């Protein structure tokens, strides 16, 4: 038995991980020097979550989304959100076809593998809520007709934290649909030099030349594989304790919902999968904890990092099982 413990087979060399490594390489090429962000994007993708990126303009949000869409071989669609954007502009609408004399459904950009909703907080609440159903249910209802979205439907929304004029901050219900919130941040000096060197002599348009590395069905099976990663009772306890900690912290107005807890577990599973393990450790939980909590907890913006650190510090890691192995 302990032989098994020592030499537990790790399916790192399986085809699953080869595919993931390919996506990782593509994203790292598109977004230089941000391997942490890329890792979290991969975690989010494998966990079938949606991603909210909050950062300043020009840091590569769109580049990342496009590269991801091309890498997973799906259709990429982009919606630039403005106050006059209507729900139909996203979901699609029915038009009367003169030839067939029938109403025909024209699918909107939401029918894509990867949807980039740029500056989502500029859309009106009505339009934002149209995305709600699409993100949560992976289906769109237009004129009482329900249209299913692809199984690997993945939303990357961005918002600009600086300009607040003419924006509609996302309501908590909408925020809870996102799996995590990421910040990209400025690249390091070396990466910027490399970026500049690479830009010399290339065309004006920033087209990302990416060959698809896997097809959507393959991604779907990867996501199913992730869902089967083991979560032991100790780690489950740890997750529940963390959730309770978010609910009882005095500076958190809105604690972690059960849906958020489920998403957290799935993200930890995805992270464990990326690490080549088929079981989740508290390291995985902690690693994805920050982005998961940041998107859905009601905390003052300035106090966010401090409060999140306090919450993580307040819950001990289960190192010795309580049942009394020792």
């Amino acid at each position: 038995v302990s032989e098994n413990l020592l030499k537990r087979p790790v399916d790192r060399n399986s085809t699953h991980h080869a595919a993931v490594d390919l996506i990782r390489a593509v994203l790292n090429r598109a977004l230089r020097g941000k391997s942490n962000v890329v890792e979290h994007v991969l975690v989010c993708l494998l966990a079938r979550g949606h991603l909210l990126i909050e950062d300043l303009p020009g840091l590569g949000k769109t580049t990342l989304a496009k590269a991801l869409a091309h890498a997973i071989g799906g259709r990429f669609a982009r919606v630039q959100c403005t106050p006059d954007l209507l729900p139909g502009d996203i979901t699609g609408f029915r038009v009367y076809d003169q030839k067939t004399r029938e109403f025909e459904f024209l699918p909107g950009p939401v029918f894509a593998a990867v949807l980039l909703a740029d500056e989502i907080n500029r859309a009106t609440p009505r339009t934002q809520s149209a995305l709600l159903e699409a993100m949560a249910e992976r289906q769109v209802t237009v004129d009482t007709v329900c249209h299913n979205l692809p199984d690997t439907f993945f939303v990357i929304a961005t918002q600009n934290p600086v300009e607040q004029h003419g924006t509609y901050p996302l309501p908590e219900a909408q925020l809870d649909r996102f799996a995590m919130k990421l910040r990209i941040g400025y690249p390091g000096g070396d990466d910027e030099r490399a970026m500049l060197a690479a830009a010399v002599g290339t065309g004006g348009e920033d087209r990302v030349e990416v060959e698809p590395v896997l097809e959507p069905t393959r991604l779907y099976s990867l996501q199913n594989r992730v869902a089967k990663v083991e979560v032991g009772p100790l780690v489950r306890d740890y997750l529940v304790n963390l959730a309770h900690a978010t609910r009882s912290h005095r500076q958190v107005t809105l604690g972690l919902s059960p849906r958020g807890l489920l998403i957290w577990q799935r993200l930890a599973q995805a992270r464990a999968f990326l690490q080549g393990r088929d079981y989740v450790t508290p390291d995985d939980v902690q690693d994805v904890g920050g982005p998961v909590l940041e998107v859905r907890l009601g905390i003052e913006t300035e106090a966010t990092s401090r409060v999140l650190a306090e919450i993580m510090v307040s819950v001990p890691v289960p190192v010795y099982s309580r049942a009394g192995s020792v």
Partner: protein
Amino acid sequence: VVDEIPQDRVIRSATLAMTALATASVELGIAEPDRSKIASLAGAAAMMVPVLALAWYLGRSVRWRPNSVRRNGEVSSFIVVALLALLVLPFAMEVGRLFWFGRGRMLEVLLLASVRNLGLGLAALSHRTTFIRLSALVSLFLVAVSSAMAEGAAMIAIIVLFAAAGCLWLMRSYWGALRFEGSSGRGSRFPVGTVAMILAVVGSVFAAAAVGPTRAATVLAGLMPTSGGTFWNDPDAQGGVNDGDNEVSGSEKPVSVGFTESEIYLESDRPSLYDAFSEQYGEPFKRTKQERMIALGQQDVRGQKERPAENLRAGRQFPMVRQKPTAPTKRPGERQAKALLYIKGPCPLHLPLMTYDAFDGVDWEEEPHTYRSCPLEQEPGNNWLRLTVPRPLIFASVVAHQIKIGTLESSPLPVPAHLLRLRVGSVNRLDFFGWAQEGIIQMMDRTVPAGTTIETEARSVDPRCLATIDFTSTSVRSPECYLAFSDRYQVDPAVSELAFSWTSGLPRGWSQVDAVVAALRRDYAHDRKATPPADCCDVAGHFLLTSRRGPDYLFATAAAVVLRSLGYGTRIVSGFYASPERYDPGTRHTPVLGEDVHFWTEVRLPGGTWVAIEPTPGYEVMGTAFSWTEYLGAIAVALGNWIKGQYAIFVASGVFLAVLFRFWRELADLFLTFAWRLSPRRDTRRWLARTFRLVERRSRWAGHPRPASTTPRRWYVPSAPRSAVDQADDLATLILLVERSLYATDETRSSRGPIAAELAATCRQVVRNWTLSRFRASRVGTLS
């Protein structure tokens, strides 16, 4: 869970300070009145030391091991039981106190002590919010109650400090509960400067009111309309509603309260010492005197004068031959008579009032009054009067008493012997006092008014010094009056024989006196009713040889006669005996009643000092009092001698302790590693956890304790590679194994089984390689 995060340090400190102040106030409130304030405060400090240590330890252990704290505000049953035990402890001790000492404390004192214990227990647990709040509440209650029980500057200082600490506590608690909604985080800092300024302003106002000019500070009071009269008092005022004290005492016809020459002649129903004698020992037989009628000439006839009362005659006598005392008449409900005196201070206590030196076989004659003025001098600045009598070196430390005059009417002061200082109310006239007899201070021509409190400080006798006194030298022989008897009395030869038989084989000195006292106390019975027959001519002989029982005055007489026959100067003393059995815990006084009138004997030392001995069984002389410094000195000397005897052991154990102090971690690690090697290896998972615990303990002792919220991988494998399997480091391998055994569910199910040799080798390698010193040198945890 957040509720259990180690609290704001300021709030914890404020809570502990409030508890300390509450404890001090309770100690002041429930202290016995004669206990010094310093001792009470020291007691409170001693109680706080373990509390602070425990609070520090718990706060620290929670920081490292939050596992030990229950969540969701649960309180473990152990804590509940411990707090209940603290609450009950004073009552349990009270049972023991009643059993051993026979007297208990008042219920409110017990209740306060138990609530104080609870507060201390809660303060020790102040790493949890719930207990912080409870502890603050309890300390507030304690201060509120004990402020009503104690007074004085110390109590006021405690209340002021408590108020300051409480304000700080409330402000910090309120501040911590605030949530700042503004976009800027500027408001989230505690406004130390503002609070300090407010406190400074309030404090300066109070300081000005306290130390500033009285008139200026109370000028507002003058603006307020009143019904007239202030607390202002001028001792030299005259012609107003009240003359000042100085005017009254200086006027020719004082009509205010005070001693007057005439007061002694006023009729009084207060009992004198003689009244107490008659009640207690019975009336003496009145001698029927044979009188012959002789006719006098007209010129010899004077107006008939009434005989003065027995109490007021000069040369009073105390006849030994007396009627049996009548039993005191039963009063309704057996009410106790009003006490003659009330004593506050250590008992038993002998209060001499009158001495007798001449004995004629039946009567003791009162020693003549010397009427010499006392060698007293007043201490500057107060009303204490100090006796400037040279003192021989037979004394231990000073004992203080307060004696309140009840109904006793007496001119000699009922004060203990060997006085050092005394204070009688506010009397500061030295000529009011004089010697009645040697060693007995009296107020000249007046009695002490009822209600007067006499404060005394007297030396206690050290019996060890008495044994060293040399009685053999002839130059220090006692005056003849203390050695001889009147012409009519000869000591019975059988009595002398008895005296010699008691003291045979003992050298001349105090040991002989002790032998006589011991023999009397051992062989004779105290019986107040066994008075000698009316026709007895030698009460001492009758008592010693025939009846062998009698009241205390016969014991005193027998001791005096026996000791005089052996050549020691003696006299007998009458007065009062304050018995510790009469101590009243309610009033904290020992009342002295009429029944406490008592006779004892005094022995004259070569220097002229009189030392009391107590020949009557059932009575005790006051034990030797030692001061703290004497006690500590004696303990230090004894300890020093003992250590000197065990020199080698002490050096060895000192070295051992030093080594233990310096290397306890290494030694403990050796032991634990040995225990780990012996531990069973049937269960892989348990064994892995045991190994990892050993490693973690080494890291903690090396100064790198893993915080409870940090995973082992983050802490011990600083730059965790993407795949830990590739990590060559043995510690990383161990952590990987531990993770698998803990978190992989299938391993959990199948962990029972023998340990593979390879896995055991890995564990052994880690234990061998990752020693304490390696952890000390490593940068574990610093990179995470």
